[in-house]
């Protein structure tokens, strides 16, 4: 039960007004995303309707509502990366992983995300896997990086 995994989070905020967003952050930290089940649990504890909580959470880019993959692949489409072919890298990644930007592969191995600038413009175009930045990407190099991750797990 997920409830057991987040009830201490809720306990820490009991009786405090205005704690919905910190709770959502903690829950996401714990679960990696905000599950429907967790929101239903928060709803009961705070006596706020699920749709109101979802309304608040979905307003912020920081919250995600689907289970993320083991590895996060971010493709930069900021100005510098864009002019140096970032869109081609994104296309290649989408094709390679078989999911659109924002999606997660069915085996929950990879989540593909688009971002707008990491501040590594000198290396454009870049992709970031988990916390590692890879510069001067080409579709082929990006694919190699994915393969490395795939091999790592066997």
């Amino acid at each position, binding site marked *: 039960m997920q409830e057991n995994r987040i009830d201490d989070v809720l306990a820490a905020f009991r009786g405090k007004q205005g704690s919905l967003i910190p709770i959502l952050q903690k829950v996401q930290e714990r679960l990696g995303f905000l599950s*429907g089940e967790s*929101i239903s649990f928060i709803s009961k504890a705070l*006596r*706020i*309707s*699920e*749709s*109101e*909580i*979802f*309304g608040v959470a*979905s*307003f912020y880019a920081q919250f995600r*509502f689907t289970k993320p993959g083991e590895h996060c692949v971010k493709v930069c489409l900021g100005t510098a990366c864009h002019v140096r072919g970032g869109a081609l890298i994104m296309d290649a990644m989408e094709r390679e992983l078989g999911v659109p930007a924002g999606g997660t592969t069915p085996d929950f191995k990879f989540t593909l995300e688009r971002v707008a600038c990491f501040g590594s413009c000198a290396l454009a175009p870049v992709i970031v896997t988990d916390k590692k930045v890879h510069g001067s990407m080409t579709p082929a190099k990006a694919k190699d990086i994915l393969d490395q991750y795939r091999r790592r797990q066997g």
Partner: protein
Amino acid sequence: MRKLKIEGKEVQVSDGATILDAAQAAGVYIPTLCHDPRLTPYGACRMCLTDVEGQRKLLPACTSPAEDGMVVRVNTDYIKKLRRTVLEFLCVHHPLDCPVCDSAGECSLQDMVFQNAVVANRFKAEKKAYPVDSSNPLVERNMNRCILCGKCVRICGEVQGVGAIGLVWRGFDTEIAPPYGRSLDCEFCGQCIAVCPVGALTSKLFKYRARSWLLDKTPSVCPHCSTGCSISVESMKGRVMRISAEPGRGINEGNLCPKGRFGYEFVHSPKRLDSPLQRGAKDFARIEWSAALTKAAERLKEIRAKHGPASIGAIASPRITIEENYLLQKLMRIGLATNNIDSIAAYGYRALYDGLIPMFGSIDGLPEYSGISAARTILVAGSNVTETNPVVGNFILKAKKTKGARVICVNPRGSKLTRHANAWIRNRPGTEAAVLAGISALIIRDKLSPKLDEARRLPGFDEFAKSVAAFTPEKVEAVAGVKPDELKGLARDFAAGSPALIVFTLNSFENSKGLQTCVAAAGLSLITGNSGPGRIGLLVPGETCNMHGMLHAGAAPDLLPGLSRIADRAAREAMAKAWGAAPPEAAGLGMEEMISAAEKGTLKALYVVGENPMVNFPDTARVRRALEKLEFLLVQDLFMTETARLAHLVLPAASFAEKSGAVANAEMRVSRFVQAVKPLNGAFEDWKILSNLCCVLGVGEGYGSVAEITGEIRRAVPALGDALSPAAEGRRLGSQAAQGTAPSFKALSLDGAAKRPDGFPFSLLTGAMLNHSGTVTRMGDGLMKVSPKAVLWISPEDAKALQIPDASTVKIASEKGQVFAEAKVSETMPKGAVFLPVHFETPAVNSLVGHSPRAGEKEVSAVKIEKG
């Protein structure tokens, strides 16, 4: 008071009023798209921007408070230009599919675009392309048309207390949706449809049925629960197309519940009876009306001649009008010389009369709904008011939200109300009277109420005090499972929180409360000074629209019209003068006695009007035995009900939309059904059928109109009749009973220890569902899609222990019988109790429930649950 000038007109408004309120008071029109008087001002649509002298910026009228000396202009050229621009922005996204939009003709956006002549749009952008969501039973969601005014979100959250939808995502992607892209799963009250200013939310039942401007609106009253909501029956070419409510009319402030808004389909159900039917050797055969009436009269006369008047009885209905109930009792009392007439009230609501009349002297003066908003404390005892009387539930939520009333629920089952309540005491099923007695005992013992001395002077106080004294906190804990501390807190809050209102239902469908709950509640209310002359701190909404009206009309074995006792000689003489014949002196048989008599074979004929005992009365097997034994069962109904199938003769009646007449709601306030469409061909209004039967049985010469019946009631029983005249719209019913009698106490007779037969470990609670009203709403597809069947609600703990997965079939058995139902595992249920709603033929809940040995007393049935 604030004094200001709007468009040159001086206007005074109270403190806290907005510029919009002031403009409305001054008769100045300001367009709005996101405003509704029921909702907190929002300021989203920017249509109501006004120019206030001395302010740099334009102010939204709906959110800006009116101030002294303001000079407000609402129609400057600049504002008009801005409005056009706002509309242009809205039309960037809004599709112009008005020809196929159900809201066309009543769409605020359409009207405003027209008023402001927005003929071209300077802006172009991507149109939205959401798929239209029809995945739920009743509400079609077309988010392409949505202008994000947020009214639906706010009415769902603020007024209904549900919050099924929200504004989700951000910026261009913002849409109104349930969380996680789920399908709408809510109460299906349709309030969101009613407030939507465009066609983003529409009723699936109304889709492509009619253009709104072709509908005839007939003001009427809702035929379902006793709240008495004003409705408009919207019809076209003799068909009811939809039901709506107007914010400015009636007690409901424009609110409606699922039953009220969507429970109209039965009117045109293909299952309606369109001819009298006579039982033949094999099946029912259609017969002519004249033959049917003659046959009915002949059989009744024969049986009367052979077995005497006491062998005939009638069951009245709280769903037919006051005039119709009046005619039925007159027919029985004069035409057949018997007082054998009773109704479903015997299994519930009558306890209110039997409890309150001895204590308060009369039933008059039950609080008006204004008593809810005036209350500081609202104690809801063992009742899911938000389901049985949803709009009364809305009033309670509103009192909490806007007036800060403290809402306390004493209820084993969780509900929407317990979710919103300040305190929820979870007692054991059927122990509400014990909890109320416990509160009274503590208040008396610890002198918690300042009004106690006053109450002490009333007759019977000592007996009452003695009868509740046994309910010490320890005893209440043993009986009801309520912790002593909880009970003490409850007693303190209730005593200190005057004015306090006790709300509960006494529905025949509920098996947990009865006369003693009523006595305990009234006693508690008296000792805390919440009841007394001119005030009764109890609100007891009934289950059907005309419960009070039916009883006031004399549809009871011991009551004459106007609530006079049949034993009262003067009252009988007054009726004799009006009727030309005297009603019999001795009280007739009550509901239970009639069924027993039929079972024994001493009651030979029964005339059932608008009632379905085979589903609605306890102990179905016994009811069946009784009805099958009758020599003549005459049933008058809209449908071939479970009861009609046992009849010898069935007369088809007309629905609320097809007839006129008065009904009285839970406040005893009179409102009227107004005929919106002609009766189905072959069916007749109940009053016409009764009038004809009266003629055939030699009672008067018939009635040409409802007004003639009202006229007779006015002459015979002025206290009742005066409230019925159309001129007295909204009057409350008066009774002939003594007015202004000093209240007195009645001792509680409650032992508290519930005996449970061995081997039946569960308490079976029974009751009504939010989406159904009696058995009649089963005849409409819309509500049947929402609630197609009765499921057994069981707690997660019990389900786990019995290894019953959600949605699996279970067997429920009591000493009386057994039924099968689908299980619904729900946290709203306490351990050890299950809930099964009525309304349906299968599972036949009432076949599990025994009939009560003592009138007005009910016992929670004990059952066992097994895997099916």
